[in-house]
């Protein structure tokens, strides 16, 4: 879609995998985060420790897992621990470098909604799956990467429900709430990359994919999106990365695997 030889979705996954280059440990949700983390491990970051909320630490799946409880995760892990342990001993103290989340809605301060669409919690327009592990992943991982397709419905001025806190109401919110991690440092979409402004905490477009213009992105953003003065154009994915990604996707039964944790129907 964005260029010859690869799709926007592939570009998004490759970009997300690249964002894990410096990470040692990653708390992974199913769907797009899992795909990107497994791509990183299969290419440039072979030592990446994958941690799934089912309690599998250091899983080395040879194919994409179908759920967070896929047997392949337990069978290839360094350790399998209970669910209370994975959250209390491993996530909560800030031992994990990167938390990788999806979103049904995300706002200008990187707050995430995976609970309900609509202003009234008791009579929602759409009932989403809910929180899962995300609130504490967003609070306690050293940093968070969000991977989500960009539309006006998804990128909203204010989320209908704060399931997981990004930067709350802006500067100082995380500190006031006692959230120990740095919060969302990259939001990777099918158009480019948004990063928080260090002063205002507002998400700003910092990189676009080849062939994507600024208006392409602002049209699909529900707030007045600011653009970094040094906006970069990212290089297209290299053939080797694409080949590995396609090989991983081919292991999924529905050959798509887009049902992200927290995604609506």
């Amino acid at each position: 879609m964005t260029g010859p030889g690869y799709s926007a979705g592939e570009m998004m996954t490759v970009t997300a995998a690249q964002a894990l280059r410096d990470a040692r440990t990653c708390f992974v949700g199913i769907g797009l985060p899992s795909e990107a983390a497994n791509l990183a491990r299969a290419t440039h970051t072979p030592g990446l420790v994958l941690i799934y909320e089912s309690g599998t630490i250091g899983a080395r799946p040879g194919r994409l897992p179908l759920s967070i409880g896929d047997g392949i995760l337990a069978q290839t892990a360094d350790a399998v621990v209970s669910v209370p342990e994975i959250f209390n001993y491993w996530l909560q103290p800030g031992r994990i470098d990167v938390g990788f989340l999806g979103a049904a809605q995300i706002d200008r301060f990187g707050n995430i909604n995976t609970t309900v669409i609509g202003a009234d919690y008791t009579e929602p327009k759409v009932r989403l799956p809910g929180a899962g592990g995300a609130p504490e992943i967003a609070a306690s991982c050293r940093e968070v990467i969000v991977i989500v397709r960009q539309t006006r419905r998804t990128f909203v001025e204010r989320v209908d429900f704060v399931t997981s806190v990004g930067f709350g109401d802006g500067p100082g919110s995380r500190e006031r709430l006692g959230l120990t991690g740095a919060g969302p440092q990259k939001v990777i979409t099918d158009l480019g990359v948004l990063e928080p402004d260090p002063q205002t905490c507002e998400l700003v477009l910092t990189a676009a994919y080849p062939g994507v213009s600024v208006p392409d992105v602002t049209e699909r953003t529900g707030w007045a999106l600011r653009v970094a003065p040094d906006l970069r154009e990212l290089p297209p994915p290299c053939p080797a990365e694409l080949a590995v990604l396609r090989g991983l996707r081919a292991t999924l039964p529905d050959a798509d695997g887009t049902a992200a944790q927290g995604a609506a129907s």
Partner: protein
Amino acid sequence: MAEIVSLADAIARSVHDGDTVAMEGFTHLIPHAAGHEVIRQGRRELTLVRMTPDVIYDQMIGAGCARKLVFSWGGNPGVGSLHRFRDAIEHSWPVPLELEEHSHAGMANRYVAGASGLPFAVLRGYRGTGLVGGQANHGAASNGAGAGPGANIAEIACPFTGETLTAVAALRPDVTVIHAQRADREGNVQLWGITGVQKEAVLAAARSVVTVEEIVDALDPRPGAVVLPAWAVGYVALAPGGAHPSYALDYTARDNDFYIAWDAISRDRATFGQWLDEHVYGGGAR
């Protein structure tokens, strides 16, 4: 002391109308056969508790067993929405469903508190989220108090540092139901692979039912296995394949096609009704 009985007897003796029932299994070892038995016995007005109310609770909610759901993630893993769950919330079909909503860390800690005999657990979590709610039921320590965002979640100050943390009320189900790989003839239970929160859920409950793939003379040790001693378990029932479409590591494989097929089966009330008639009420489960 565990009694080894039929699945029908275990459910009849343990699960009653109006009970708070936890059926746990974190994508692995989900007690589906026991869920079907609860549906067959026509239980009503249950408060269903489960971290991940996936297909098993979609079936029980659609069959009209539940009055309330206490949970942290309700979806069909890797597939999408739970249509019976959504129909109950969005259209009160077949009956209205009250929600009490948490995070995974919150639910896990609520079970830990219940298993530990404490009124609450403490964690660094929930702060700044809508899950804390704005309701007046903060601090309610009794099981099932309140509903919606904020029920059974409260801020608490650390008595040593003053740091603001979050307290979550203990979960104390009337009955917890799990599936395990095997038990011995005394009723000692052994499970391995992804063991989730099952140990805590059983120890937090007043009564418990464990369905197993097989009953053996002796439990030889397994790496990483959880053993629940017979004296901590209520009923053990043989239910080979009882996790289907979930799986029991080293016994059965996850039926991924069923999870995908469930999307179409459950989308429509009539199709779902036919499925229940054929696969649950019709006798042979699944």
